[in-house]
């Protein structure tokens, strides 16, 4: 199973380490030509969404990535990755990939003093540690979006078909549960593809 990790800016190495430990074949995507390598799943890490969104466009990767995700490539976005996938960001005019039917709030807990760690329930997994760094949350989710976790009443993890997003950073914790959940999404797409053949 090959997983491409968007490595333009942010905490991509942490995802890489975790997915590698789970047995996936992981590589970094830094420019347009890296997309030609082919992969079964894609990760958009935490970092600054303004930086990643800008570089996606300027390095000529934006349209291709949008197409493959729209065509069903499993994708996992954490924090900035959630913002890049969101259809709407309430307090930001920038629209990025805009594929997931959610409205997010950026820096929703304020500045760094508002960053926090907590343990909370994640659907089908149970209680896991969650680290929020200048994090967003999801204010509204469409009907086709399944809510996977809430903290303090706010939506912090969700899934719509092939897209999984978390406002928190599982890659900064000891728990690999969310990454395993994502790899299972990738596997089920693969086995469906096999059945269709």
């Amino acid at each position: 199973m090959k997983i491409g990790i968007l490595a333009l800016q942010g905490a991509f190495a942490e995802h890489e380490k975790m997915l590698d430990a789970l047995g996936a074949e992981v590589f970094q995507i830094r420019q347009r030509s890296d997309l030609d390598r082919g992969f079964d799943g894609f990760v958009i890490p935490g970092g600054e969404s303004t930086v990643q969104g800008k570089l996606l466009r300027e390095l000529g990767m934006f349209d291709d990535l949008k197409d493959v995700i729209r065509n069903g490539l499993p994708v996992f976005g954490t924090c900035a990755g959630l913002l890049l996938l969101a259809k709407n960001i309430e307090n930001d005019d920038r629209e990025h990939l805009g594929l997931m039917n959610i409205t997010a709030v950026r820096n929703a807990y304020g500045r760094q003093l508002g960053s926090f760690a907590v343990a909370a329930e994640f659907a089908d997994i149970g209680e896991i540690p969650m680290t929020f760094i200048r994090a967003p949350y999801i204010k509204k989710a469409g009907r086709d979006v399944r809510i996977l976790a809430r903290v303090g009443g706010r939506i912090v993890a969700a899934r719509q078909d092939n897209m999984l997003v978390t406002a928190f950073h599982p890659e900064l914790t000891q728990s690999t549960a969310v990454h395993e959940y994502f790899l299972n999404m990738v596997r089920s797409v693969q086995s469906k593809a096999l059945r269709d053949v």
Partner: protein
Amino acid sequence: MNNERFELNKNLAQMLKGGVIMDVTTPEQAKIAESAGACAVMALERIPADIRAAGGVSRMSDPKMIKGIQNAVSIPVMAKCRIGHFAEARILEAIEIDYIDESEVLSPADDKYHIDKTAFKVPFVCGAKDLGEALRRINEGAAMIRTKGEPGTGDVVQAVRHMRMMQSEIRRLGSLSPDELFDAAKELGVPYDLALYVHDNKRLPVVNFAAGGVATPADAALMMSLGAEGVFVGSGIFKSGNPEKRAAAIVKAVTNYEDAEMLAELSEDLGEAMVGINEQEIELLMAERGK
């Protein structure tokens, strides 16, 4: 600062990795930096090149000016306080700065003690020119390290020297046998547990950026290749002919620092780089402040 807060503060630095942190003096410059792709900005009244030119005592910036920049951008905002000046640091914490740089660029307020950074909730980044300095700052509570380099010169030689020194000391520590570590920790002037961490993990326990003298995309790529996890650019951007273009080029150079063809393209037509001063020509070595 409890352990959880320290972890969260280290985590924020992890989110900045692979990015460029730019010095800005006005909300307008902050917006230019943000739209050029800065992952954070450093708010200060005068950039290091001007501090160097003006001479005199250099202090924390006016909180009102910093707030103006906080309101202008959505990315993290950092600000500098003087080495050892915990009252300035408290002020910066009170205005909810995202990161405090206890910086040798400003005039030191204390020639012996650094700030006890464990007493704060907001994170600190500190400069270091070797592994001993880096681990001492981390022991005091720094959640991020940068090379000192030589700020405001546009000369990358000292940043290179400091990064190479740190990396080679990390490799050396990693090669020692466990019973040799006690003495190595003593020699470095650092606690044993931090020496052990470096020995076991072959890296600093926190994120390590390059700073001081970076002026071109090639400088940034050089520092990344030497092991920096991101880059601070101070005077290099807004002292150059075309700040927007240079800033955007340095951002891309940090992401694709190994792609020489892309770097060639990025280095074209950037206009004039900051003039710069060679290290032999300067009278004040800021890197010698605070060890």
